[in-house]
């Protein structure tokens, strides 16, 4: 499963820079930049967007991120010209944060819908609300107590604590599991949410998980934390 990403910006530098930044977190994900106009002006180019979509086709779906209004319109127009292809989704998310979150989810093997959700979860990450409470409500019986199916508390032992790379590892892995996971009340599949925890060495991550892979999700986070994310 490799979902590709296309970033559409008015500025070639923004598109290229966002792609470069996201690629650092997700080395195996194909990210195509479609920024600026072919004659070097600020603006969005249908040709560039369609070329990027063409390059991205053949993979397991594409998620598009676009900046200001007319970039969104150009991306929508490109999809209309292409006949609204299956598996190509436009995410409603801020370009930089959304792209990084999407890239991390794609790196973790998430499908195209999960990658789009990961990008869009960036908006809601500060609220502490899990991305989908529907997972909980599906199983009415077990929800009466409103408790998660699995929980775990893990103390951060690495020097740097929670920062971009550990957040990427946690979010990327969780995105590929069939579970709703919160870490200290925030969406565990959102890298940006995890980074807002600002949890240093010695802080405890409280993990709650629901869904088919709930146990694996808790163990996954626990394993990473206890291994210090492979860091000193």
């Amino acid at each position, binding site marked *: 499963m490799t979902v590709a990403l296309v970033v559409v910006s008015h500025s070639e530098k923004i598109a290229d820079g966002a792609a470069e930044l996201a690629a650092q977190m997700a080395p195996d994900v194909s990210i195509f930049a479609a920024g600026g*106009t072919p004659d070097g*002006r*600020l*603006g*969005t*180019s*249908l*040709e560039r967007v369609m070329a990027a979509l063409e390059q991205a086709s053949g993979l397991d779906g594409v998620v598009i991120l676009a900046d200001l*209004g*007319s970039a969104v*319109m*150009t991306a*929508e*127009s490109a999809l*209309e*010209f292409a006949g609204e292809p299956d598996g190509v989704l436009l995410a409603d998310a801020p370009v930089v944060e959304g792209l990084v979150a999407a890239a991390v989810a794609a790196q973790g093997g998430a499908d195209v819908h999960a990658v789009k959700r990961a990008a869009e979860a960036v908006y809601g990450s500060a609220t502490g609300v899990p991305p989908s409470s529907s997972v909980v409500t599906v199983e009415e019986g077990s929800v009466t107590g409103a408790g998660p199916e699995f929980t775990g508390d893990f103390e951060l032992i690495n020097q740097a604590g929670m920062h971009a790379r550990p957040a990427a590892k946690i979010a990327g892995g969780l995105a590929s599991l069939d579970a709703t996971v919160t870490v200290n009340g925030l969406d565990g599949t959102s890298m940006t949410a995890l980074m807002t925890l600002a949890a240093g060495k010695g802080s405890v991550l409280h993990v709650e998980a629901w869904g088919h892979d709930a146990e694996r999700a808790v163990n996954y986070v626990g394993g990473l934390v206890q291994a210090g994310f492979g860091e000193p």
Partner: protein
Amino acid sequence: MVLDTNWAVKWLTLCAQAMAEHRAWLIELDRAIGDSDHGENMDRGFQAVLDKLTEVTPETPGAALKLAAMTLISKVGGAAGPLYGTAFLRAAAALGDTLEVEPAVFAGALVAARDGIVARGKAEPGDKTMVDAWTPAAEAALIAAADGAGTVLEVLVAAAEAAEAGAAGTDPMVARKGRASYLGERSAGHRDPGAASSALILRAAVGAAA
């Protein structure tokens, strides 16, 4: 008069002429409430359509409009590119492969164009946008065509006059969409540049048929 491929090509040619002639006026309108690039963008976009028409010879009116759609989205830049591109693309789809556009079909194409602009830009009538030109234009064309008595020229004229009145009607409006909406009340007293260029486009359709 029939609305055939020659008419469609002439329409686009007259659009390019109108944008070149009114370039300074559109820039002035956009300077008042926007980022003053509308005249330049529309002029560049339609000049690119002209260039394209020297390379490619469309075989149907729909093909001509689709060529314009593609070129405008690519070359206009800003929001006007995808908005006009979508309008021409939807209109082209409504025309299909027809070689001679009937009055009712042209009216239907204007409705499709308007719906495309609304879908892409999420603006409603009264927001002080090009929708305020396209909505009355599409409605007037439908009415003129529905009477049955309407010749193609009458339908084109009805659309152009309604678009011009609609554009003038944006003068007192307070913008709720687009860059002008940042100005709030200060946007009142100026014509919306997109509505103005829309009226030019629909007036050019009349000129092409005359």
